């Protein structure tokens, strides 16, 4: 031991020594000077009236080991080990689990646990599993003897005879109870076929009900994949189990009634549904049939279109016929009229008229010629007859005669114009003769 130690070597030696010799301890004391740094670890001082020691409660332990929250002044019993911290040459308790000390602490612990679990959400209704409507098999965690199981069996048989019951026996009182209940629950899970679990016991005192306030049990119930009904027979007091369970029944009998429906009612419901189903389907069909019937009634064949069209077509046919005939007749009568008109203008009429006119002109020209001619003839005749009455030789008829010189033929009106022996011609009324002047008188 002559070796000179460095501080580090010394602290290492002390650490080894202390940790080897104080591996696991039970220490009781009062909590003081509690600190909760953000790391989540809890630092406090455990003290009694004379002494104190530093303690730390690491978060990783805290999850499962502390059944209630630490606070200054609380009396606790810790399971811990001793640990050193060489850099500073200090030692402290590493707390592994904490239990409350005394009745007040129990109630406190209950409240704390309830608050904590609530804060964690274990009682959250959203985590509540739905109970099976008609469980085929109900697991019952309870004592296999006594009134509780009998009540449950009676009620389920009465309500629905075909529900199976699987009993997972567990003590429901005493320090072992919570653990037994947990393993009973686990057994039921691992055995399978269980639709719902009733955790049941008859009524009792707060202490009797202590197992049902166990955190581990509460967490087990919370984690259960099978819905759990808590039926801890106490009308007024609630246990942690009651809060965490999917359903709380005031008594085991009530739990049985809540879980198992009446078969008769179900049959009636089913009958009713069946009746409604059939009725709905029939109504559905009838409705469609009615629609079909009305549609069929309204569905008429297009022959009336055809009839309508036929009538129109006949009308057109009749009218086109009439129009064509009428048009032709109209044109024909117009033609007849024109023909008649043309016939009336037959140039033969003109010819006839003109012929008459021409005839009258001819008559006129002949007549006017006649008139013209006769006028001239008359004039000539008149002059002619006048002239003949004026014939100077006419006096000769009365015995006169004309004496003319010869050969001149000059009419001798004075005897003196004559010479004796001269020859003269004498004209008588009838015939003439020559004579010789023998004597002249009247000179």
């Amino acid at each position, binding site marked *: 031991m002559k070796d000179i130690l460095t501080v580090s070597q010394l602290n290492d030696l002390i650490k080894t020594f202390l940790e080897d010799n104080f591996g696991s301890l039970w220490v009781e004391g009062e909590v003081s000077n509690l600190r909760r740094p953000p790391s989540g670890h809890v630092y406090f001082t455990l003290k009694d009236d004379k002494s104190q020691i530093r303690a730390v409660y690491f978060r990783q332990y805290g999850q499962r080991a502390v059944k209630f929250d630490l606070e200054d002044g609380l009396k606790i019993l810790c399971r811990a080990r001793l640990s050193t911290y060489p850099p500073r040459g200090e030692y402290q308790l590493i707390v592994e689990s904490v239990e409350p000390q005394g009745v007040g602490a129990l109630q406190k612990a209950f409240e704390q646990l309830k608050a904590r679990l609530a804060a964690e959400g274990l009682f959250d209704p959203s985590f509540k599993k739905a109970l099976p409507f008609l469980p085929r098999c109900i697991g019952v965690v309870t004592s296999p003897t006594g009134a509780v199981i009998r009540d449950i069996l009676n009620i389920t048989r009465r309500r629905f005879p075909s529900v199976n019951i699987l009993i997972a026996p567990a003590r429901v009182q005493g320090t072992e109870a919570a653990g037994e209940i947990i393993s009973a629950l686990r057994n039921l899970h691992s055995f399978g076929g269980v639709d719902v679990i009733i955790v049941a016991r008859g009524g009792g005192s707060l202490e009797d009900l202590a197992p049902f306030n166990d955190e581990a049990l509460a967490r087990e119930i919370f984690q259960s994949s099978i819905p759990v009904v808590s039926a801890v027979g106490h009308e007024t007091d609630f246990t942690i189990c009651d809060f965490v369970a999917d359903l709380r029944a005031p008594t085991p009998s009530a739990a049985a009634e809540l879980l198992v429906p009446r078969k008769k009612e179900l049959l009636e419901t089913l009958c009713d549904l069946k009746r409604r189903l059939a009725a709905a389907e029939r109504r559905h069909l009838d409705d469609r049939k009615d629609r079909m019937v009305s549609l069929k009634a309204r569905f008429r064949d297009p022959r009336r279109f055809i009839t309508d069209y036929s009538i129109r077509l006949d009308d057109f046919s009749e009218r086109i016929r009439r129009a064509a005939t009428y048009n032709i007749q109209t044109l024909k009568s117009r033609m007849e009229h024109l023909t008649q008109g043309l016939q009336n203008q037959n140039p033969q009429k003109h010819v006839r008229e003109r012929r008459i006119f021409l005839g009258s002109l001819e008559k006129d020209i002949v007549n006017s010629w006649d008139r013209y001619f006769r006028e001239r003839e008359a*004039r*000539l005749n008149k002059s002619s007859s*006048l*002239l003949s009455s004026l014939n100077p030789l006419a006096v000769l008829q009365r015995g006169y005669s004309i004496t003319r010189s010869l050969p001149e033929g000059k*009419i001798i009106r004075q005897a003196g114009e004559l010479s004796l022996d001269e020859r003269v011609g004498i004209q008588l009324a009838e015939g003439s003769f020559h004579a010789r002047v023998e004597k002249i008188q009247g000179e």
Partner: protein
Amino acid sequence: MAKEKFEDALEKLENIVRDMERGDMPLDSALKSFEEGIRLIRFCSAKLDETQRRVEQLLEKENSLQKKNFQDEENDE
């Protein structure tokens, strides 16, 4: 003298007649006028006859045509 006209001749004749009717014409003149008158009468008569003949010819021809047409027309009726 150009061809003697009927109208001139007729007029001369009428003048001669008128002159002679006055009665104071010497026999010589009277005889001459008378002779002229006779000649004129003859001339005019000839003219008239000739014209008349021509007209009658025409009318005859026309009548026969007319008659024919008339008969045709009657046949048409």
